[in-house]
C-alpha cells in the first residue's frame, strides 16, 4: 500500500494542501499520514530574549514559554483533527504523528518510517530578498527526501 504524507507545522498549514493530500491518498488508494511539526525556534527566541535582556525572572519566562508551547500543541491537534475528519469522510486510511524539532530531519524520519511515496509540503511566501539569501526548509526537503515532494505555496 502506498503512503501519502502531509507535512504541516506551526507556521505551515493550508486547507488546499489538506484537500489535495486527502484526494491524492483517495485516488491512489494510499494511506494518509499527517505529520505536525511544532516549531520551537520562536519559543526559544522568546525565552532567550527574556533571560538575556528581559526585566523579568525565570518563572514568568518559563510560564510564558510553556503557554506558547501549549498553544502550538493544541493547534497541532486541531489541524490533525481537521485532516482526520476529511480522511474519514473520504474513507482514507489515516495516521498522525506530532513531533518537534528540525523540519527537514523530522520529515525525512517519518518518510522513511512510513515508506512514503509522495509527501505534500507547504511553503510560505517569502520575499525575493529572503529567497536570495536563504534557502527555504521546504526546498531543502525536496532535495533530500527519498520520495516525491509536492509543494504548495501559501
Amino acid at each position: 500500500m502506498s503512503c501519502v504524507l502531509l507535512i504541516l507545522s506551526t507556521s505551515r498549514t493550508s486547507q488546499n494542501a489538506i484537500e489535495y493530500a486527502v484526494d491524492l491518498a483517495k485516488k491512489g488508494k494510499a494511506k494518509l499520514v499527517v505529520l505536525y511539526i511544532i516549531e520551537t525556534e520562536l519559543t526559544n527566541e522568546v525565552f532567550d530574549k527574556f533571560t538575556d535582556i528581559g526585566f523579568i525572572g525565570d518563572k514568568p519566562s518559563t510560564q510564558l514559554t510553556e503557554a506558547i508551547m501549549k498553544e502550538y500543541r493544541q493547534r497541532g491537534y486541531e489541524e490533525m483533527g481537521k485532516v482526520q475528519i476529511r480522511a474519514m469522510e473520504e474513507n482514507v486510511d489515516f495516521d498522525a504523528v506530532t513531533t518537534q524539532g528540525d523540519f527537514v530531519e523530522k520529515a525525512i524520519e517519518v518518510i522513511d518510517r512510513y515508506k512514503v511515496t509522495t509527501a505534500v509540503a507547504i511553503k510560505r511566501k517569502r520575499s525575493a530578498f529572503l529567497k536570495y539569501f536563504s534557502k527555504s526548509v521546504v526546498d531543502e526537503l525536496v532535495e533530500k527526501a527519498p520520495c516525491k515532494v509536492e509543494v504548495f505555496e501559501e
Partner: protein
Amino acid sequence: MNKYKTLHNPAYLKIDLMLNGIKADNETIQRLGLDLRYGYTGVTGGLDILLPHNTWVNASFLEEFAKSSKYELVLRDKKTFIKAGDESVKVDIMPKPEFYKLSTATGIPLSKIGAMHGGYVAITPDTRCEFFNMNIECRYCAGNFNSGGSGRVYTVEEVLETVDAANKEGKAEIVYLSIGFSETPDGGIEFLKPYIKAIKKHFNTLVAVEALPPKENHFIDETYAVGADSVLYNMEIFDERLFKEICPGRDRLIGRERYIDALKYAAKVFPNGTVATHLIVGLEPAESTIKGIDFFTGIRVVPILPIYRPSVGANLLNYKVPSLDDVLPVYRDLYHAVKKNKININWVRDISVITTPIEARFFAKTKFNKTLMERFYKTKLGVKTAWGLSTLRRKLRVREGGEG
C-alpha cells in the same frame, strides 16, 4: 584438500578452524598450561589463537567435531604451531586472561561477566531474552542468553569491576555490551545507558553496543550521545523468507524493514565503519548472504560474517556445516563491497569469533601488507588516537537539550 593452501592464508585458515576446530592432545594442553576450568567450550569458548597477519581465531578443541579436524596444535621448542599434513605455521596461543580467575566484591567470577575475544571484552549485563519466553527465539540460538547468568542482572559496579580488571591487563581496547530482546520501544538502550555512561566515565576505552533496533530513531541518537562508539543491530539472515523462519521473534516483533531502517539511520549518526550487522554464513544460500553484503555496504553498514557452529540446545541440529568452497565467494564479496563503498575497516577488527572485512582481504587476491593506518591503529598511540577522535567527533556532533 590443499586447493586453497589454507595453512598459509590466515583468513582461509581462520574459517577452516572456525568450521572444523583443531586437534590438541592432552599433553599439549598441559604443556600450554590451559586451565580447563575457565570456559573452553560452547559457542565462543574455544581457544583464542593469533594466526599470522594478526588474525585472531577462536577454534574449538574440546568438542567432538574438533577431533576429526585436519589441523593439529603442536609445541616445538616452546613455540606453538598449527600443523596440517607435513606443513605447519607458527601461531600464538592467547592464554585465558588472568582476570577470569578473579571475582567481584559480590562474589561473581569475572569470567561469567566478561568474555575476551581478541581485543574485545564482551559483557552481557542482563542475559535474558524474552524471545525464549514467547517461543519465538532465533532457531540457531542455543539459549546462551538465558543460561549465562541464570537470569541474574549484573550491576553497573560488577560490570565496572570486570572492565577494570580487563583494562589493567591491557585487554579492554573495546568493551562490547550486548542485550537480549525485551518488549520495550528502546531496543534495550535505556537499560544499557547507565553501563555505557559508567564505562565511559571511568575508562578511556571504546564501547560497542549490540542491541535491538529501537522503535524510534531518537533512541539511536541517544545511543551515540551517551557514549557508544559503535552499534550493532544483528539481522543475522538477509533472505526474507528464511529470516521469518529462523528468526521468528525478530521478524514478528521488530520486522526486517525496521532492522534496515534503523541500520540506515544509525549509519548517518555513527562514524563510517562503526555500524554493523551480523549475517550468519551458512544458514542461508551464499547468494542471499552476498545480496545482504552488497545491500548493507551500500547503506554504509559493515556486514560481519560469523559462521554458525551448531551447539547442543539449538533447534537447527540437522544443519550441515558449510564447506570452504561454500563460504569463499561470500567473504570475497565482503572485501570488495566494503572497498567499493569506501567503508572504514579499521573499526571492526581483531575479533576472534567472527570474520571481519579487514581479514576478508586475504580472499581477495590482494597483497597481505597492512596499510599504514592499520599499522597505526594497532599501536598504543593508535588506540588512544581512535578513542580521542571518537570522543571529539561525539563532542562536535551531539547537541544536548535540543528542543524541549
